[in-house]
């Protein structure tokens, strides 16, 4: 039997996770413990390969689907559905997973129980890709919880220290409450439409949406925003993130910050834009306001941090704010201007949401890079305090240079990747000249960008330019397999910055799929 192409990326990862204990036992017997790491890396590479194949097939033939079982005629069922939007996120998830697996080869070698670590990492990425490939809320919820449970256990992986345990419990309680809130919204949606399939729900909303109780519809939208917003770390639901990210091993911090919070963005945008017509329901304004509040609050909090990973965690929240604002501007333009000028409103929306998706990619590689770099520093110097790490970049030339590129990319310095996406989101905000509210939002974003650039440069100056302290006098460059993913991600930041064209095209295609038909 041939395995359908949409299942391949997920099944490869899950199957490898399932046989990981056997592989680890065999490897231990053969006195080649590192074999399990190589198998995990190979599984990620295979999954990435099949994702690329799937991407080409979707480009050629349109969305791919595989239905396991249906709940009766015309009801839809347990459906794996991959379109451009899903595969775009899936490739980001799997790419960062691959980098993290290569990094873990040496970074995690001091820990025990690594067969479980790799199994959980594989399940985490399988869950993430599954979330991106869900055709209905049922599937989305199952893959979502798969991802959440493995990330709770990975955050608390070093359970012999108090910090991960405390942060992990906080993360577990907040994130579970968030997913349960979203599930409550799903049950309400089910009660209304009798279905959970995205396509069927969309048909239902077009046909019956006007007749349904508007209070109930906005309640459902609220549960989707707030429920997935916990994982996306939207202010005021962000408080788990600055604790969980520093407490986790650096490889997992990169995973959480690079992709897990993006899964929240993905589910939120899919749940809203795929079902509720953005030119009828005004959720864009809500997303936009939450977005700018997120940016502002997290920027102020980031200034007060002394711990390098904590500062980077707050900077992740800032960037989630940009993505939310981009999505919000798209929705706002559609709901307010599609009656007067449908074409223009749609092009603004595609510009804004495309910018948000592009920023998702840029932040995934940029923040993945920064967390892996800080992992290199922490691994070699044994501290996370910025004051202790001063000047370490001079000692670790490859990690230091990559750290510089990552910081400049996220600060939005022109030839690097982060510049373009921020520019798109801000330009989209200014593209409707006589809308004062939108202009205000964009001005807040510009002020915050400058503000954020200042503390990125401050961090850069302390890590790279200060004279190293005597405590880190003996620090050497990290091992090759730790430096390799860092350098690859840094090169990606530069290349995407200089040639943004291909990624922008894919992001625009994905946006058109998301907004298709409205």
């Amino acid at each position, binding site marked *: 039997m041939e395995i359908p192409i949409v299942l391949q990326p997920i099944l490869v990862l899950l199957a490898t996770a399932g046989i990981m204990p056997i592989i680890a036992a065999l490897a231990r017997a053969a006195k080649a413990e590192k074999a399990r790491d190589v198998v995990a890396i190979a599984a990620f590479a295979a999954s990435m390969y099949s994702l690329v194949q799937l991407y080409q097939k979707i480009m050629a033939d349109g969305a791919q689907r595989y239905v396991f079982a249906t*709940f*009766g005629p015309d*009801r839809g069922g347990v459906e794996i559905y991959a379109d451009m939007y899903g595969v775009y996120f899936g490739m980001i998830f799997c790419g960062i997973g691959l980098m993290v697996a290569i990094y873990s080869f040496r970074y995690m070698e001091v820990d025990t129980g690594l067969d479980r670590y790799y199994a959980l990492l594989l399940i985490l990425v399988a869950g993430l890709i599954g979330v991106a490939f869900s055709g209905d809320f*049922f599937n989305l*919820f*199952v893959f979502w*919880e798969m991802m959440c*449970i493995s990330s*709770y*256990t990975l955050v*608390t992986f070093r*359970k012999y220290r*108090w*910090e991960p*345990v*405390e*942060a*992990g*419990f*906080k993360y*577990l*309680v907040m994130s*579970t*409450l968030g997913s*349960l809130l979203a*599930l*409550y919204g799903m*049950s*309400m949606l*089910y*009660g209304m439409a*009798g*279905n*959970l399939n995205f396509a069927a729900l969309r048909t239902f909303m077009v046909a019956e949406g006007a007749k349904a109780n508007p209070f109930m519809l906005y309640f459902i939208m609220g549960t989707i925003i707030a429920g997935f917003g916990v994982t996306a770390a939207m202010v005021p639901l962000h*408080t788990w993130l*600055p*604790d969980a990210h520093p407490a986790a091993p650096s490889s997992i911090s990169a995973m959480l910050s690079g992709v897990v919070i993006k899964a929240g963005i993905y589910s939120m945008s899919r749940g809203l834009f795929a079902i509720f017509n953005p030119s009828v329901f005004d959720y864009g304004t809500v997303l936009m306001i939450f977005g700018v509040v997120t940016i502002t609050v997290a920027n102020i909090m980031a200034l007060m941090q002394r711990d390098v990973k904590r500062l980077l965690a707050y900077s992740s929240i800032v960037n989630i704010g940009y993505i939310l604002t981009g999505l919000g501007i798209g929705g706002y333009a559609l709901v307010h201007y599609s009656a007067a000028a449908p074409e223009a409103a749609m092009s603004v929306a595609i510009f804004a949401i495309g910018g948000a998706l592009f920023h998702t990619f840029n932040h995934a590689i940029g923040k993945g890079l920064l967390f892996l770099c800080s992992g290199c520093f922490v691994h070699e110097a044994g501290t996370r305090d910025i004051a202790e790490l001063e000047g370490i970049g001079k000692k670790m030339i490859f990690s230091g240079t990559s750290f510089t590129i990552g910081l400049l990319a996220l600060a939005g310095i022109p030839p690097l990747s982060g510049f373009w996406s921020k520019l798109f989101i801000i330009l989209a905000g200014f593209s409707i000249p006589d809308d004062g509210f939108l202009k205000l939002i964009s001005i807040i974003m510009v002020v915050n960008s400058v503000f954020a650039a200042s503390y990125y440069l401050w961090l850069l100056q302390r890590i790279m330019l200060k004279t190293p302290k005597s405590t880190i006098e003996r620090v050497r460059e990290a091992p090759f397999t730790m430096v390799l993913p860092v350098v690859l991600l840094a090169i990606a930041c530069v290349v995407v910055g200089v040639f943004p064209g291909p990624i922008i095209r894919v992001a625009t295609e994905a946006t058109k799929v998301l907004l298709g038909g409205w």
Partner: protein
Amino acid sequence: MIELWQIYVTGAAALAIVGVYCVASRRNMIRTVIGIEIITAAINLNFIAFGSRTGQVDSLAQSIVFTSIVIGASIAAVALSIVINAYRHYGTLDLRKLSRLRW
């Protein structure tokens, strides 16, 4: 005329509020976990109530509730294992003592 499923939906909402209150007000970590489980139960009840609205059993509601019960159990298992580790570090189950992390 109030139908039976409406009573169940109202009951589920009340149960969810009980669960949220339990998570928000209790200081014992195990009670927090129990609160989460109560909310899960409330949502499952909601699904079942909506699924029986037509007088027939809807297979979608049944299957999502089965899956949700399994997921709830795994979350409880992970949560309780974290609670055990927290007890080893702190010697208490009081959430107020777990405040070494800054904001």
